[in-house]
C-alpha cells in the first residue's frame, strides 16, 4: 500500500483538531468550538459561493464538533450539496455527515434521496456503494419507501459487481429490520438463496446474513437455503486452511461465514432428508473433532475463531436437540472449558451449559460437572463469571441435587456481590419451593434467606412463603414454631417480623399449648419488635393482634390496653391510628361469633404460577431462563407432584396483580378484616396482603358484603394525585407514568377558560388509536361546558401532541371534569383517567378595595350560612411570601393594610359565571406558634363559600 495519504490534506481540519486537543479546560474548548461554529456559519451564509473543497472541510469540522458531543443545527444543506459533487471525497464526506447526523427534516430527506437515486443509477460501483452504505446506515422509513423495491434488483442483477452485491444485501437486511412491510418479497428471493453458491466468499458472507434475517420472519420461503447452507458449510470445514486464501483467519477457514451459516441453520429443525442430515452431522462432528486438535497457532485469535465456530455448532446441536451423541460430546467439550485458563472460555462454557442442562439427553452429563461449577462460584474473580455459575447451578438443579445446590447458593449468598444478591435470593426461593419434599425444609430455607440477606428478600418471596404455609396444613405448626424461635434472636430482620406476625396471627394457636410459647409470650415477643419497625410492618402487627384477640380470648385485655394506649389511638400516622381505633372498637362490640367470622383463618390461595418465578423471568427476560418445568424432568424419572406442575403451567395473572391490585387509591377492599385500610385508600403491602383471598367465602358475615370489591366493576380509575397542586397554579405536569406525560397550560378570563393539554409519548414506539375526551358528572354538565378538540390518533415515539379544551363556567360548581385517554401501545390498550384541574376559583377576577369598603362588605355578608371557617394544621413551612403567592395564585387580590394584624392575609375577588357573579372575601390568619391556620370565607352563596374554603385550605 502506498504511504497513506492521511485524509486528503484538510489542513484547516487538522489545525482545528489540534486546537481542540490543546484546550486546557472544557470552557476553553467550548469557546474554541463556538468561534469555529460562528466562522463556519458566516462562510455558509456569505455571498461568495464556496468551492467544493471548502464545503467539504467545513462539513467535516461540523461532524467533528458533533462527535465531540455538541449539537449541530446547521450545515445539513451543505452536506446534501456535497452529494451531487462529482468528486469522490466530497461525496464521501457528504454521505458520512448524513449517516451520522440523520435529520428527519422532510425537505432534506427528499434531497438526500435524490442524491442517492442519482448515485444508484450511475453504474459507477464506488458511487453505488456510497449510496447503499448511506441507506444501510440511516435505514429510515423514508429511505425504505424510496428504495426498498429497487435494491433487490441491484442485488440479483447479473452484471452487478461483487462489492455492490455485498452492500446491497446488507442494505436490504437493514431495511428489512426497520421497515419489513416495505420490502417486497418476490421472485428475487429465490435468486438470493442461490447467492449461497456464489464464488465470492464475501458475497456469500453478506448474503447469509440477509437470508438468515428473512428466514427468521418467513422460514417457509427460504427452506431451500438449508441444503445450500449445509453444502457450503461442508466445503468450508473440510477445506485445507490454505484453500480459502484471505478468508482464512489465523488458520481457521472462514470463521465468520461458518458462524453465519450455522446461525442460518438454527432457523430450521433438523433436515428431513436423511442424506442431508448425515452430511450436516458430519460437519458438526468435524467441528467438534477440530476443537480437540492441537492448536495451529498460539495466538488467541486462532483459538477464538476456532471456538467461535465450535460454540455456534453447539448452539445448533442444542437447537436440534435430537442427536444424543452430539449433545453429550458437546457437553464434554464444554466441561473441559470449565477449567480453561482463559476466563472468556470459562464464561462461555458456563453459559452454553445452561442451555444444555435443559435437554433431556444432556441434563445428566451436565450434572456431573456440579463440583466444578460450585468451585467456580467460590473461586472466580470476575463477578460476571460467578453470575454464570449461579445460572448454571440453577439450570442443573433437580430433585437429586436440590439440597446441595440450595445449600451452596445460600452459603455463597453470605459473601455475594450486592449486584446479584436479589437474583440469587429469587433463585433459591424458587428451587426451595420446587424441590421441597418436605415443606419444613422449605420454611427453613426461606427463613435462612431472610436471615442472611433480608434486605434482598423482595415482597414476592415472603408473600410466597405465607401462601404456601396457608395452603399446606402439614407445615403450619412447624412454621409457627420456627418463626417463633427465629423471632427470639435479639436482632432480626424486619421481613422476619412480617412473616412472623402473619404466621403467628394465623397459626399461633398451634404452638400455644407449650407454656414456653403461650399466647401471652407470643404476643409479648411480637410486641417487643413493634417499635423498631416501619409503619407498614406495624400495621401488619396490629392486624396480627386483632387476630390474637380472636384466637386467644385470654390475652384480649392485654391487647386492648395496647390498642388503647395513646401511642396507638393517637398515632400521627393516620393508617395506624385508624387501625387501632377500629380494631379496638371491633374487639369491644362484636360478639365472639362475629369476631370469629371476621377474623377467620385465611382461605387457601388459588394455585398459580409462582410470583417469584414471574419476577425472575421479568428480571432476566425469557431468553435467559431455562425453563425448569419442562418435560425432561419426568423423562428423567424425577416426577413432580402433579399439582405443582399443573399449577406452574397455568398461565394465570401473576400473584402481584392480586396482591397489589393497583398502585392508586381504591374505593374499597374485599377482605373481611380490612375494615379500615380499604376505606383509607391505603396502598402499602400489608393491606393488600390481607386481601390475598380473591373472593370472600360465601356465608361470611355481613361485613363482607358491605366491603365487597367494587373496584373491578368500575371503569378506568381516575388519577387525581396532582389535582390539588393546580389550585393555585395553571401550568405544569398533571399526570405521568412510564409511557405518557400529560402537561397543562391554562388561561382564564371571566367565565371562560382554555386549557392546552400536551400529551408526550415517552417511549420510542408509536401510540396508536390515541383518543382523549372529557366527561363530567350529570350535575357538572349543567354547570360547566367543556369542549375538547380532537387530537391526532397517532403519537410518534418521543413526540408530543397538543389538544385544546375550551371551557365555559355556567354556574358555580364543585365537581371536576375527567379527562379520559385511550391508546394502544405495543398491542395493549391503555386506559387513563385524569381529574382535570378546573376549579371554581379559576374564574376569579381580583378586586382591589379600601379598608372601610372591605369591612362594610364583610359585615353585609354576615349571615351564618354565608361564612365558612376552617382551622387546620400547616402542612408546609409557614412562609409569608409563599403564602402570598398562593393567595394570588388562587385568584383574589391581596389587600394590604386592611387587617389590623399585619401577619394576617386578606383578599377579595369576584367569581364570574355565565349566570351570575359572586363576590368573595377571605381572611387567613396564621398562628406560627401552634403551626395552625384559620381560614374564613364570606360570599353571597353558601356553596361557593364552602367550595372555595375546601380548595384553599388544602394549599398550606
Amino acid at each position, binding site marked *: *500500500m*502506498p504511504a*497513506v*495519504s*492521511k*485524509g*486528503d*490534506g*484538510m*489542513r484547516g481540519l*487538522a489545525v482545528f*483538531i*489540534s486546537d481542540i*486537543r490543546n484546550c486546557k479546560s472544557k470552557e476553553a474548548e467550548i469557546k474554541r468550538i463556538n468561534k469555529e461554529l460562528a466562522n463556519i456559519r458566516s462562510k455558509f451564509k456569505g455571498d461568495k459561493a464556496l468551492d467544493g*473543497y471548502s464545503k467539504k472541510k467545513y462539513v467535516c469540522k461540523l*461532524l467533528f464538533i458533533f*462527535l465531540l*458531543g455538541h449539537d449541530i443545527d446547521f450545515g445539513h444543506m451543505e452536506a446534501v450539496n456535497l452529494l451531487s459533487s462529482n*468528486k*469522490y*471525497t466530497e461525496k*464521501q464526506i457528504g454521505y*458520512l455527515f448524513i449517516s*451520522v447526523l440523520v435529520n428527519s427534516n422532510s425537505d432534506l430527506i427528499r434531497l438526500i434521496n435524490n442524491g442517492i437515486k442519482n448515485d444508484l443509477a450511475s453504474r459507477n460501483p*464506488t458511487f453505488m456503494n456510497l449510496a447503499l*452504505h448511506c441507506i444501510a446506515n440511516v*435505514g429510515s422509513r423514508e429511505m425504505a419507501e424510496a428504495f426498498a423495491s429497487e435494491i433487490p434488483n441491484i442485488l440479483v442483477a447479473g452484471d452487478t459487481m461483487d*462489492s455492490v452485491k*455485498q*452492500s446491497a444485501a*446488507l*442494505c436490504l437486511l*437493514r431495511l428489512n*429490520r426497520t421497515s419489513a412491510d416495505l420490502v417486497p418479497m418476490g421472485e428475487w428471493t429465490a435468486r438470493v438463496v442461490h447467492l449461497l453458491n456464489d464464488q465470492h*466468499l*464475501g458475497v456469500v*458472507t*453478506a448474503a447469509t*446474513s440477509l437470508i438468515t434475517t428473512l428466514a427468521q420472519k418467513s422460514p417457509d420461503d427460504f427452506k431451500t437455503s438449508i441444503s445450500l447452507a449445509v453444502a457450503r458449510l461442508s466445503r468450508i470445514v473440510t477445506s485445507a486452511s490454505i484453500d480459502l486464501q*484471505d*478468508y482464512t*483467519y489465523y488458520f481457521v477457514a472462514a470463521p*465468520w461465514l461458518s*458462524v453465519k451459516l450455522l*446461525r442460518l441453520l438454527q432457523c430450521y429443525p433438523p433436515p428431513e432428508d436423511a442424506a442431508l442430515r448425515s452430511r450436516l452431522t458430519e460437519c458438526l462432528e468435524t467441528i467438534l473433532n477440530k476443537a480437540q486438535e492441537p492448536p495451529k497457532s498460539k495466538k488467541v*485469535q486462532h483459538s*477464538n*475463531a476456532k471456538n*467461535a*465456530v465450535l*460454540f*455456534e455448532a453447539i448452539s445448533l446441536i442444542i437447537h436440534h436437540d435430537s442427536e444424543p451423541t452430539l449433545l453429550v460430546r458437546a457437553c464434554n467439550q464444554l466441561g473441559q472449558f470449565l477449567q480453561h485458563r482463559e*476466563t*472468556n472460555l470459562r464464561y*462461555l462454557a458456563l453459559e452454553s451449559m445452561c442451555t444444555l442442562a435443559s435437554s433431556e439427553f444432556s441434563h445428566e452429563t451436565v450434572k456431573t460437572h456440579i463440583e466444578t461449577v460450585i468451585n467456580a462460584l467460590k473461586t472466580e*474473580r*470476575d463477578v*460476571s463469571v460467578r453470575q454464570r455459575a449461579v445460572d448454571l447451578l440453577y439450570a442443573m438443579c433437580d430433585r437429586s441435587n436440590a439440597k446441595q445446590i440450595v445449600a451452596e447458593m445460600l452459603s455463597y449468598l453470605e459473601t455475594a456481590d450486592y449486584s446479584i444478591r436479589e437474583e440469587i435470593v429469587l433463585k433459591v426461593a424458587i428451587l426451595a419451593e420446587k424441590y421441597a419434599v418436605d415443606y419444613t425444609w422449605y420454611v427453613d430455607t426461606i427463613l435462612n434467606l431472610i436471615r442472611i440477606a433480608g434486605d434482598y428478600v423482595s415482597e414476592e418471596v415472603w408473600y410466597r412463603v405465607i401462601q404456601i404455609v396457608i395452603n399446606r396444613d402439614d407445615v403450619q405448626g412447624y412454621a409457627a414454631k420456627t418463626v417463633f424461635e427465629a423471632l427470639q434472636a435479639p436482632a432480626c430482620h424486619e421481613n422476619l417480623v412480617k412473616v412472623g406476625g402473619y404466621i403467628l396471627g394465623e397459626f399461633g394457636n398451634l404452638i400455644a399449648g407449650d407454656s414456653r410459647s403461650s399466647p401471652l409470650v407470643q404476643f409479648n415477643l411480637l410486641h417487643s419488635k413493634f417499635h423498631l419497625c416501619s409503619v407498614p410492618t406495624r400495621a401488619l402487627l396490629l392486624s396480627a393482634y386483632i387476630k390474637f384477640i380472636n384466637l386467644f380470648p385470654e390475652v384480649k385485655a392485654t391487647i386492648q390496653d395496647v390498642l388503647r394506649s395513646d401511642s396507638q389511638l393517637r398515632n400521627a400516622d393516620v393508617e395506624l391510628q385508624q387501625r387501632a381505633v377500629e380494631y379496638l372498637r371491633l374487639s369491644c362490640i362484636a360478639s365472639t361469633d362475629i369476631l370469629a367470622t371476621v377474623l377467620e383463618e385465611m382461605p387457601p390461595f388459588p394455585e398459580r404460577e409462582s410470583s417469584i418465578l414471574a419476577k425472575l423471568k421479568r428480571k432476566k427476560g425469557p*431468553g435467559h431462563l431455562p425453563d425448569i418445568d419442562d418435560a425432561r424432568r419426568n423423562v428423567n424419572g424425577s416426577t413432580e407432584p402433579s399439582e405443582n406442575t399443573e399449577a406452574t403451567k397455568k398461565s394465570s395473572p401473576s400473584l402481584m396483580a392480586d396482591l397489589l391490585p393497583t398502585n392508586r387509591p381504591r374505593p374499597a377492599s374485599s377482605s373481611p378484616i380490612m375494615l379500615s385500610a380499604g376505606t383509607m385508600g391505603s396502598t402499602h403491602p400489608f393491606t393488600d396482603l390481607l386481601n390475598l383471598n380473591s373472593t370472600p367465602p360465601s356465608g361470611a358475615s355481613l361485613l363482607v358484603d358491605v366491603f365487597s370489591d367494587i373496584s373491578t366493576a368500575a371503569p378506568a380509575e381516575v388519577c387525581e394525585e396532582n389535582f390539588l397542586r393546580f389550585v393555585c397554579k395553571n401550568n405544569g405536569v398533571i399526570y405521568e407514568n412510564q409511557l405518557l406525560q400529560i402537561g397543562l397550560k391554562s388561561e382564564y378570563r371571566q367565565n371562560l377558560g382554555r386549557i392546552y393539554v400536551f400529551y408526550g409519548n415517552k417511549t*420510542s414506539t408509536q401510540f396508536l388509536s390515541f383518543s382523549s375526551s372529557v366527561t363530567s358528572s350529570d350535575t357538572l354538565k349543567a354547570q360547566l361546558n367543556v369542549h375538547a378538540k380532537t387530537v391526532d390518533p397517532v403519537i410518534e415515539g418521543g413526540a408530543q401532541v397538543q389538544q385544546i379544551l375550551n371551557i365555559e363556567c355556567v354556574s358555580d360548581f364543585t365537581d371536576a371534569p375527567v379527562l379520559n385517554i385511550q391508546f394502544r401501545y405495543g398491542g395493549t390498550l391503555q386506559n387513563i383517567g385524569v381529574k382535570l384541574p378546573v376549579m371554581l376559583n379559576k374564574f376569579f377576577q381580583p378586586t382591589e378595595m379600601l379598608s372601610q369598603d372591605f369591612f362594610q362588605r364583610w359585615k353585609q355578608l354576615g349571615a351564618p350560612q354565608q361564612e365558612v371557617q376552617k382551622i387546620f394544621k400547616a402542612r408546609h413551612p409557614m412562609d409569608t411570601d409563599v403564602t402570598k403567592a398562593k393567595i394570588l395564585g388562587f385568584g383574589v387580590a391581596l389587600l394590604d393594610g386592611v387587617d389590623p394584624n399585619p401577619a394576617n392575609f386578606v383578599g377579595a375577588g369576584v367569581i364570574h359565571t355565565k349566570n351570575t357573579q359572586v363576590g368573595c372575601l377571605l381572611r387567613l390568619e396564621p398562628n406560627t406558634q401552634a403551626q395552625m391556620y384559620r381560614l374564613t370565607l364570606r360570599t353571597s352563596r353558601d356553596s361557593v363559600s364552602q367550595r372555595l374554603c375546601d380548595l384553599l385550605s388544602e394549599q398550606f
Partner: protein
Amino acid sequence: MQFMLLFSRQGKLRLQKWYVPLSDKERKKISRDLVQTILARKPKMCSFLEWRDLKIVYKRYASLYFCCAVEDQDNELITLEIIHRYVELLDKYFGSVCELDIIFNFEKAYFILDEFLLGGEAQETSKKNVLKAIEQADLLQEMRSFLQPVWLSVSTSAPRPVSASVQIPIIPPIAVSRPG
C-alpha cells in the same frame, strides 16, 4: 450488532457507530453508562458482560477500548474477532495505528468500518478486499489532487501534530504480522 464504540482510557469517545435507531439523548446516555461500566472493570476480567438485555463484548488495545453490543443470540467470540479484524485493518491502513491517527482521521476510520461492517453485519471479512476498496478511494482522490495542484501544495503539508504524550501503537508491531 447494535452499536460499536471506541473510547480512550480517559473515557473520551473516539468513534461511535449505531446500527439501531436511537435518539441522540439515548445514545449519549448509553455511551456514558457503558464507558463507565467498562472502565471500572479490571484488566483480567472476561471480555463479555450482560448489560440491560444486550451482550457487551469489549477489548482494550493500548489506550483504546473497542466495545460492541450484540444481541442475545449473537456469538461473543466471533464479535471479539470482528474487533480484532477492524484493528488490523486500521493498523494496516495507517501503519502502526495509534489513537491520534483515529482522532485526526476520524472520517477514514468510519470509511474503513463501513467497508467491513454494514448494517451491523460483517460485509467483507477479507482484509485484502477491504483495503483494496479503501485504496481505490484514496487513489481517486489522489488523481483529483494532481488535477488541482493548488490543493496539493496545501494538502501535503498537513501535519500530524505530535502530542505531548507519546502515542502507543494500538497493536504492538509484532502482533500484526500475519501467521505463516
